[in-house]
Each structure stands twice: as C-alpha cells, then as structure tokens.
C-alpha cells in the first residue's frame, strides 16, 4: 500500500467512525461527532472537481489604498508586510480564514 493510499484510508476510516456516531463527544477535539452542519454544500454536482460557473461570491477583499511598490529596506515579505502602512501584500489566509468564514472551505455533497 502506498503512502498516499495509507493516508487516504486513514481519512476514510476516521470519517466512517464519525458517520457511525462513535461516542467522541467527551473529547475536546471531537465534539462535532457526525454533525456536519458546518459543511456548507457547494453548488457543484456531487463528486465534481470542476466549479460551477458562476459561483457565489462569499468574500470580497478590498484594499483601502494602493499597495506600495517602494522598498522599505525590508524583504518583501508576508511576515512584515502589515507593519508599515503601505507595504506589500498580506497573505491570503491572513484575511480570509480569520473572519469566521464558514464558507471558505466547501464540501461537495
């Protein structure tokens, strides 16, 4: 069995255990049990990898001002980018994932 298959099998086994309603609610990590209400269904047909066009707009990222292309003497970095007022980009996850954005990852149902 390849590494890929081992991982895929582990994921499938854990999901099957959840689906079977195994009593995990005493765990800090497993309190979702088989409840998948947070998995917002996508608009895609079952099993597809191809998004349906047009897809819904769930988030809109709007810089309030231009990004600077002037060097500040620091490396262009997503580490320090949000320190100086007009530095370069922040990371994608910086602004999308934080915002309690339940639609950000979608399950195809």
């Amino acid at each position, binding site marked *: 069995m390849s590494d890929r298959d081992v991982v895929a099998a582990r994921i499938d086994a854990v*999901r099957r255990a*959840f689906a079977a309603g195994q009593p995990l609610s005493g765990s800090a990590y497993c309190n979702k049990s088989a409840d998948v209400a947070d998995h917002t269904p996508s608009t895609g047909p079952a099993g597809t990898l191809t998004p349906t066009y047009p897809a819904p707009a769930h988030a*809109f990222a*709007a810089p309030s001002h231009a990004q600077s292309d002037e060097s500040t003497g620091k490396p262009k970095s997503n580490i320090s980018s949000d320190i100086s007022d007009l530095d370069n980009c922040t990371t994608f996850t910086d602004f999308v994932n934080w915002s309690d954005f339940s639609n950000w990852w979608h399950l195809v149902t």
Partner: protein
Amino acid sequence: MNRTRMAISTVDDVVRFVGQMSMVSNPLSVVWHAGEPLVTPIPFYEQAFERFEAGSPPVPAQHNFQTNATLLNDDWCRFIKRSSVRIGVSIDGPKHIHDAYRVDRSGRGTFDKVMRGIEKLREHDIPFGTISVITRTALGQADEICEFLASLGSVRVCFNLEEAEGAHRHSTLDDEDLRAQARRFFARAAELLSGTRKVTVREIENMQHHLSAPPGNLVMRGDNRPGAILNVDVAGNVTTLSPELLGQFHPTYGEFIWANVHKDTWSSVLQNPDFLHVMRDIETGIEQCSKSCGYFAVCGGGNPSNKLTELGTLAGTETQQCRLHVQAVADVLLDLLENAQLAARTSPSTDVIQCSES
C-alpha cells in the same frame, strides 16, 4: 510610496458589481486589508460602509479589518464597535519572536505598539482574533507561542506557516523537510490551546471539520474556485481565486486582472481568455492532486498562488504550504481522532486525548 486611496466612486461600483452577481452570500464578508487598513481614516469607512447598505440592490456586509493594531485608539475602537467590524490582529508571539520580523520603517520592533492596541480592544470589550506567522525559528517554540497567545484573550488563533507566495518569493521554511517539526508545533497547539485552554485554533478546527465529514466528501477551496472570493484593488481592478494573484505578473498568465468594477461585470471575468487559461491550468493541477495526494479529501487541490510561486505553474501539485499547513495538521488530527476513537471503543467516557508528536 503610493498613497492612493480607494475612491468612494470605486466603492459604489464594487457594490454594483457584487450586487449584480447571483448567489452572493448574506452578509457578504468584506475584508479591508493589504497594507494597514487603519491608515485610511474613519470617515472613509463610514462612507464606504454606508454605500454597501445604500446600494441598488443593497449588499448586506460584515466588514473585517486585518490590522497590525498599532494605530488603534479610542476613536477607532468606538467606530469598530459601532459598526460591528470584526478584528484580526497580526502578532507573532512574545516580544522577542514578534520583533524579530515585525519592525517599523526605522527597524524598531512593533510589539509594544501592538500590545497597546490590543489593550485598547480589551478596554472597549472588542473581541479579536490573532494571526501569527510561524518562521523556522518560531516553529521550535510552540509552547512559548501558544502560552502567550492564550494569555491575550484572542477568540480565534490562526497560524500562518511562512510561505513563499506572491511578492514573498522565499520562506525560511523552504528547502527542507520540516513536516515533522510542523507536526510537533500543531500537536502542541492542539494540546495547549484547543485542549487545555479551549481556544479555537483555525487550523485545528478546519481540519476537524474536514475529517468529520461524511465518507467520500471532498473539500472545495475558495482560493481555487472562481467567484468564491473577489479581490478588488484600489483602482477597481478585479481578480478572483487567490488574492495574492492580484498585482502579480507572470509571463504565461499575464497580470491576473480580469475585469474592472468601473466598466465590467462578473460575466466579463468568466469570458476573459486569460482567466480561462488560468482556470484550465488550475483544474489540471487539482486533477493531478486528486490522483497523487492522499490528503486530497481534506485539502481540495492546493492554493494556486503557492503553486505558482513555488512550482512556476498553476498546473502543479504539492507545495511546501501543502506539506506544512495541510498535511502536518491532518497528521496531527488523524492521530488524535484515531486515539480518541480507539479510546471510545474501550471507554465511552474518555475525556483526554494524548497528542502524538511523531
């Protein structure tokens, strides 16, 4: 330095652009970011927020600031509270870790200023999340970082493993298999934050959701799915998919600007040949991911911007970001859940999970 500020007329056209799209979520999550959003004064946001409400049609919005917190004062806090803006603060950890990279233009560490901003949020009883960039050095200091973040009172802790992406071409986490270290880091975060302190950790929470989905389900990502995220720059230029694509130029893909809110609609994006070229390659990459990666069911095919920066193509597969920020977290959660399920079979009242640091 370019100090151009988005015109209110551009906000008007953004609202029109978004309002014409079908299936816009309600409320729409609007994130003001890229550079420090609080540099732009409060009156701008008062006007901008009003434009969303007064649009035709109105676009109900939940506004968010991703900020370094250094400019927070009582006026900002009153506005944030009045407008129900959600706040994310960028802070990497205790002073010596934060100040190693987060410096002002004169090279001075900003930790003290950030903490003053956080104190303002606390004074005004404003909930906030945190985002911490984890460098190679920080990767080995999980306990110190987690204990510090737990002490801040953040409602949601997020870790960004430093990644090569967009304008940031190289990461301190490049060129070495650091997955075992990343696993140890997230195992400690799961234990110290999610477990002991009951603090929500974005990576743990997300992966838990993916792993508790019905068997056979796949995750679809917002950053490789057209329209899930719109990105608009100060001039009204529009892109979708990974926001880091906006502002980049690539010899194969061009500028990643596929419309402008002043003259186009969402349909313009969908008909743009450059966009269609990008999508063909992204879909090729996703398909290859589905065939080659065991984590595909909990990932959804990787971040296009990371693929472009690390692999030079959108049609590629595994990146360092995959290994450290997806696979490592999945490994930790799989260990935890397998242990919990094993324990549950022998003792239904199990309350403690041992974290594996393998």
